[in-house]
């Protein structure tokens, strides 16, 4: 039990946010209207992705320092789990954009930069597949991962602030801070972030265990 409490917590939090996020009152804002509820489902994806990519970079650094295979597997599997959340973040954003902006993809800077930062990680997986020798692969992939991470941070957190975007929080559009006045949303948003981050970590540990078993059978 003492090892599973956080999984139960994550499941409970996500179920709670799914119910409360759809049923509780939200502030009425022009344009956004009811789609403001997407905050509970779209934004936590990015938080989970960034946390998983940070774990991945952390293990890449360790893998470079120690040359141990287990760290390399941890780095790959957390990047894998992070990519899932990145794709989910883009999809939830695109569905939301269909109903507020009229199109799934309107080449908004935020959308473009998010897509490019995913390309960075797809390039990471292609790089891994291009090298056969395991130790060499671990080393070079770790180096690229560490090299790509600051670029991902620039892409997701610096560049969108410099360009005009229709995304909430940019260019005078109401952002998270202005909904924040309404503490009802906080009650759902923070648990949602925590819940999805833990779910992401759980997916990562599952993938890691599967991979470790596969490797031990070789």
């Amino acid at each position, binding site marked *: 039990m003492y090892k599973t409490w956080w999984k139960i917590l994550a499941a409970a939090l996500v179920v709670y946010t799914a119910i409360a996020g759809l049923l509780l009152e939200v502030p009425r804002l022009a344009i956004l209207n009811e789609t403001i509820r997407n905050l509970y489902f779209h934004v936590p994806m990015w938080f989970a992705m960034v946390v998983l990519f940070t774990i991945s970079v952390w293990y890449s650094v360790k893998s470079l320092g120690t040359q141990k295979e287990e760290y390399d597997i941890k780095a790959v599997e957390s990047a894998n789990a992070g990519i899932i959340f990145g794709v989910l973040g883009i999809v939830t954003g695109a569905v939301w954009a269909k109903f507020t902006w009229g199109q799934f993809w309107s080449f908004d800077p935020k959308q473009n930069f998010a897509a490019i930062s995913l*390309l960075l990680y797809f390039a990471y997986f292609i*790089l891994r597949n*291009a090298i056969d020798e395991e130790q060499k692969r671990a080393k*070079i992939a770790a180096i690229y991962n560490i*090299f790509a991470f*600051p670029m991902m941070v620039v892409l997701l957190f610096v560049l969108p602030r*410099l360009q005009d975007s229709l995304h909430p929080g940019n260019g005078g559009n109401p952002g998270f801070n202005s909904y924040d006045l309404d503490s009802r949303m906080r009650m759902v948003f923070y648990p949602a972030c925590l819940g999805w981050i833990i779910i992401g970590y759980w997916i990562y540990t599952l993938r890691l265990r599967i991979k470790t078993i596969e490797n031990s059978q070789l």
Partner: protein
Amino acid sequence: MQLAQQVKHLIKKEVVLEWRSKYALNGVLLYVVSTVFVCYMSFLSIEKLTWNALFWIIMLFASINAIAKSFLQESKGRQLYIYTLVSPTALILAKTIYNSLLMIILTVIALLFYTLVFDFPKDTDILMYFVAAILGSLSFSTIFTMVSAIASKTGNGGMLMAILSFPIIIPVLIVLIKFAKNAVDGLDRAVSLDEIGLLGVINVLVMTVALLLFPYLWRD
């Protein structure tokens, strides 16, 4: 002190090698000239926005071609020889400095030829555009040198070079194009200070990460 000596000798070696064959210089120049020519024949007259975008696209591919060879074309034997002589930090520093010099020369020549074929649009801040071009060539060389070092280790470097470097270069390219567009529009110079700062920060970031990581990368 020893590091500076090593860097100096390595840069000298690169310059002498390049001067002997003049392969990169002539090859890339010919590439730029023929691309500009093809563009001229297909565009004839050109709008401001396209003018700027076209220049950066030409420079992007020219610099990938010029810099990809810095690690990819060194023979295994020569690499081993260099590795026994100098420190990895000196090697990556020398390569980056040499590539920056090469790219600055190439970019200035390319820009001169480009403006010979397509005139500068009206009210361009020409000095600012040159600053943008030089900052651009610096950023291209720092990023592509490190990526070329990574790609050279994989065996099939040519294609990986493009796959690995494009997602990294796109943010830089976006900032550069915006900066250069400010210059083309003849906006006040203070407007572009943000972009210059951001490019500087990205360059410093890339150089630090490259200096930290290259010692792990170079030994097989």
